[in-house]
């Protein structure tokens, strides 16, 4: 919970990791991957929040609990696994690794699972087992994950459809989608989110949370989100610009409010790339700069409260104390949300 000027904000961190990128658990791809993550971290964090590389490779359970819950205002953190076993042989951040740590802190974490449709029938059984063990409410999908010779997959692949059916059957209703730089075939734009549009139409009872609001394809994300009421935007990676480039952050959140509205955008730190403490503090103090307000409007405290926690609480059935709720008598409809033909 974060309190400012007498107002209390319930905070759900929608995207966190507990990763193992130590040298003994990585190959040359893994080394490149974590170096790239580290550049994001040191490039976009305030100086006092920058870690040394050794700590970044493998921070402790205590670090994570401290940064999220003791000083970071987070009421509930969602752990999003990223397996990356082709880069990190023991797994970068698997469901099992996350769950083992979460078990030590009851009530603090929501542990999401994952699936990879290239695993075929066996993968469906694995998903069932994962659900039985961890009672999943969501999965995180990384479409750029390498698997043998394959460099990725899409949500529109035939092989993926039985997995969504199984999610529906098991009550795993939150599908987080993260795009990366590779895909099959490699000549296509790997960051394109048109496949999310396809899956969201086919499975209207599942929620599709596009991580990083589709960055670097904000325009594609906004576009599909206007068409599909069950598409959401997760702000992991978009958040830290609030510090380094606040005007760009204003554009991103302003565009999201316009195209998809205040009910479908979700706060996330992407811990440990960034830490929720400074993100939450800066966000509550944030306003669209005056010279941009004629185009982008402003953001209200109620909208901030929804973004910081209430929207995610709805998706994950998290109980929120009454004093931190927002009355929802007047439903705000995003202006951009009427379907129109593509440009």
């Amino acid at each position, binding site marked *: 919970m974060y309190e400012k000027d007498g107002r209390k904000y319930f905070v759900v961190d929608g995207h966190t990791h507990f990763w193992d990128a130590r040298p003994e658990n990585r190959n040359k791809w893994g080394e490149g991957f974590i170096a790239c993550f580290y550049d994001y971290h040191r490039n976009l964090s305030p100086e006092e929040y920058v870690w040394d590389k050794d700590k970044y490779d493998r921070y402790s359970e205590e670090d994570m609990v401290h940064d999220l819950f003791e000083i970071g205002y987070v009421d509930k953190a969602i752990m999003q696994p990223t397996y990356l076993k082709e880069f990190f042989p023991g797994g970068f951040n698997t469901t099992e690794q996350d769950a083992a740590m979460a078990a030590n802190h009851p009530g603090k974490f929501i542990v999401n699972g994952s699936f990879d449709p290239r695993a075929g029938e066996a993968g469906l059984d694995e998903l069932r087992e994962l659900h039985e063990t961890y009672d999943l409410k969501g999965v995180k999908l990384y479409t750029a994950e390498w698997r043998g010779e394959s460099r990725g997959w899409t949500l529109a692949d035939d092989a993926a459809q039985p997995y969504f059916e199984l999610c529906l059957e098991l009550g795993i209703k939150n599908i987080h989608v993260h795009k990366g730089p590779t895909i099959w075939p490699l000549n296509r*734009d790997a960051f394109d989110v048109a496949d999310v549009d396809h899956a969201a139409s086919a499975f209207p009872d599942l929620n599709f949370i596009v991580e990083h609001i589709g960055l670097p394809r904000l325009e594609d994300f906004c576009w599909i989100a206007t068409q599909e009421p069950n598409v959401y935007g997760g702000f992991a990676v978009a958040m830290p610009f609030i510090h380094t480039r606040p005007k760009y952050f204003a554009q991103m959140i302003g565009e999201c409010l316009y195209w998809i509205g205040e009910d479908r955008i979700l706060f996330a730190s992407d811990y440990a790339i960034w830490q929720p403490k400074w993100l939450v503090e800066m966000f509550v103090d944030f306003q669209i700069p005056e010279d941009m307000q004629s185009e982008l409007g402003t953001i209200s405290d109620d909208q901030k409260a929804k973004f910081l926690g209430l929207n995610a609480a709805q998706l994950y059935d998290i109980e929120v104390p009454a004093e931190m709720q927002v009355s929802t008598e007047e439903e705000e409809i995003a202006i951009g949300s009427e379907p129109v033909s593509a440009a």
Partner: protein
Amino acid sequence: MTAVADVLGALERVRDPELDQSLVELGFVAGVEADREPVRVRLRLPTYFCAPNFAFLMAADARAAVEALPGVESVQIELEDHFTAGEINAAVGCGAGFVDAFPDHASDELDELRTLFRRKALMARQGRLCASLAADAIAALRLGELAGADADRCRELRAELGIDSGPDAPAFVTAQGAALRAADVPRFLRLARLISTSLEGNAGLCRSLLKTRYEGEVAA
């Protein structure tokens, strides 16, 4: 002998197709050696995992641009610190295509990808051009009525996309090249602004990541 400045001048005109900015401006040119053949151009990108398709296009375009300089006989492009540097350098070095570079992972060349991003870039460029015009005049304008660098950039890109760029053609077109209708102007402006926000935001991030990655090193 070719001057480094000439090589840089040629590279100045090569754009990152994803960001619609020059490789030189973006700082992606790490070094040029032009005192002997082959002329060597070293390229570097903001991350080890930048998408291989765009990286390939930049390397291949850089080679073509430098090779077209008078007096240049051969060019060697060296993409550095990238997870597919080996594949890309080998293929671009012998003038091979994307499918040759990635026979197991590519189903086609990159023409479609390039066209898609030219269309995005056209929207963004038109959005910038619109910023100084009255919204109600936009649909009626002819391309010949517009002057200046931004207008020239739109003309250039329209020509590349095969969209009429003559003086009597409509000044503003949809990403697909259709004339903009008056009723669609507000939506068009909104979309153009969104796309230019996206492109400029990405370019900003790429610049700063590049700076972080190569702290202390100076670009060519």
